[in-house]
């Protein structure tokens, strides 16, 4: 099982000091957090994509490439990649590029994005959200698996004889997760392709997550990718820890009360009861997290949100230390002991290359360009 963190890249005022970090400061903090994640033994770092303040992460592949260059083992992912408003051609190119630079340590999580104004900024309409997710992803897959693509659809200009470069590393595209909080159509899409399904989990009651995951598993089996319990499931989680649970509650409460998404609403106690939010001791986080398995089954990836709502970098790094030293080693051991042998691990580049029968060079060499008439072979002579 993989453990990691996901961030939305929000720039939020620290409610305890009234101080708001600059973009430069917050961006550097996220780079530090990502490197620290590898240092403390976590497996995954996932970065969100947003195109409006208070977020900085408009260009995730740039950031992830920097992190890839500074890390050795960390799996890089997204939370999420906007499959609705990004041109699927650009997603295919950018993430194949990142995959090469990161030596295969890349996967993606597709999301629709729920901020209405973003759509028209990129020439789209939120009312077409599901249709965009369906069409764009179908094209993205073809761009990664077919060397030359002829294509016509509803939402972008047609393609004729188009080759997306670079071709995926070793001939194997990055693994894809589909993230959705409430749309069964997206769980259906993940199941249809045999891709992973990630439930954000942290904003809604567990019974809702349970129903979405159950539906995905049932449809995964229906489409013939394996048994329902072999479907690839990821979950979010949200934690804040101190040695003594009351210290954790006291320290986190002002951040909770003023948090961008749920702040100024329910109490910390109510929200902790209704959602997976766990504020307390490392042992409480271990017990709560192990409990997720009771309603979603054996799953492959657990990501925690630990750096939002204006928490200072120093605090976030302390949280990472606690996760790495006290929480994740226990969770790894306990989850592994519970998992039956026929339930797969989360796919990695290595496992996908092996499943494809080994690495292939799929470079498409141009036969000749229309400007000079020279071929690639002639140019190297």
């Amino acid at each position, binding site marked *: 099982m993989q453990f990691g963190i996901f961030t939305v890249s929000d720039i939020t005022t620290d409610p305890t000091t009234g101080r708001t970090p600059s973009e430069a400061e917050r961006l550097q903090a996220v780079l530090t957090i990502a490197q620290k994640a590898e240092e403390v033994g976590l497996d995954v770092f996932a970065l969100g994509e947003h195109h409006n303040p208070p977020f900085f992460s408009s260009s995730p592949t740039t950031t992830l490439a920097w992190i890839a260059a500074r890390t050795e083992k960390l799996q890089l992912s997204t939370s999420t990649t906007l499959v609705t408003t990004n041109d699927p051609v650009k997603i295919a190119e950018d993430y194949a590029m990142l995959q090469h630079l990161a030596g295969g340590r890349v996967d993606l999580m597709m999301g629709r994005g729920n901020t209405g104004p973003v759509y028209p900024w990129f020439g789209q309409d939120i009312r077409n959200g599901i249709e965009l997710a369906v069409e764009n992803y179908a094209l993205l897959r073809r761009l990664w698996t077919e060397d030359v693509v002829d294509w016509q659809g*509803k939402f972008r200009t047609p393609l004729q004889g188009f080759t997306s470069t670079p071709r995926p590393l070793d001939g194997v595209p990055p693994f894809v997760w589909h993230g959705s909080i409430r749309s069964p159509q997206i769980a259906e899409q993940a199941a249809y392709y045999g891709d992973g399904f990630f439930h954000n989990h942290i*904003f*809604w009651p567990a019974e809702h997550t349970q*129903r979405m995951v159950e539906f995905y598993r049932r449809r995964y089996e*229906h489409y013939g990718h394996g048994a329902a319990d072999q479907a690839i499931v990821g979950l979010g989680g949200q934690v804040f820890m101190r040695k003594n649970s009351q210290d954790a509650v006291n320290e986190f409460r002002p951040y909770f009360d003023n948090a961008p998404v749920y*702040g100024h609403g*329910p109490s910390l106690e109510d929200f902790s009861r209704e959602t997976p939010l766990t504020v307390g001791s490392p042992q409480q986080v271990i017990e709560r997290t192990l409990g997720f398995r009771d309603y979603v089954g054996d799953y492959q990836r657990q990501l925690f949100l630990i750096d939002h709502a204006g928490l200072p970098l120093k605090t976030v790094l302390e949280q990472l230390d606690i996760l790495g030293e006290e929480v994740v080693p226990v969770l790894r051991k306990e989850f592994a002991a519970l998992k039956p042998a026929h339930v797969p691990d989360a796919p990695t580049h290595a496992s996908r290359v092996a499943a494809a029968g080994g690495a292939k060079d799929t470079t498409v060499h141009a036969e000749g360009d229309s400007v000079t008439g020279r071929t690639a072979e002639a140019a190297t002579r």
Partner: protein
Amino acid sequence: MSTRTLAVVSAGLSVPSSTRLLADRLTTATVDALRERGVTATVEVVELRQHARDLADNLVTGFANEPLRDAVGTVAGADGLIAVTPVFSASYSGLFKTFFDVLDKDALTGKPVLLGATAGTARHSLVLEHAMRPLFAYLRATVAPTAVFAASEDWAGGDAGTPALTGRVHRAAGELADLVAARPPAAPADPFADPGTSFEDLLKGL
């Protein structure tokens, strides 16, 4: 004898409230009218005052907490609805509106609904027609033709009310009972049932 469930939503704030009093009058009359039509009705009352904070939380978090989920489930799963609000600033109260804001937009589709409102003066009575009826038309509910308004003067005659109020209550209850008895029992749609169309159809539909 067949059975149906009636949900009653009351947005009254004081205890006792004239809004709840009107809701109870409408409910009793509807249960009687259903019995005359061979239908046994069970009644579940949602007092919105008890969910004031739950509703505010739902606006912020986007989900209903457990007590509110039960209330929403009661209304969504009922065969008929009696909805009564006090008039605040020339319309239904904010609390009343918030409940119908957080309800799934399809939860009331086709559901028989009886509307009621209360105020200090009969000069507000068109709130039923100008504010409440359009709201429930938007939600595609089947609204009974008679909606019942009760002002202070309607209660002045004591518990039994004025003959005029009693007459309106009975006419409205009869209309709701006709609508409820004529429909098969409610079966809420399950968004997680296996889809009727395959993903291939979704792809082809583009």
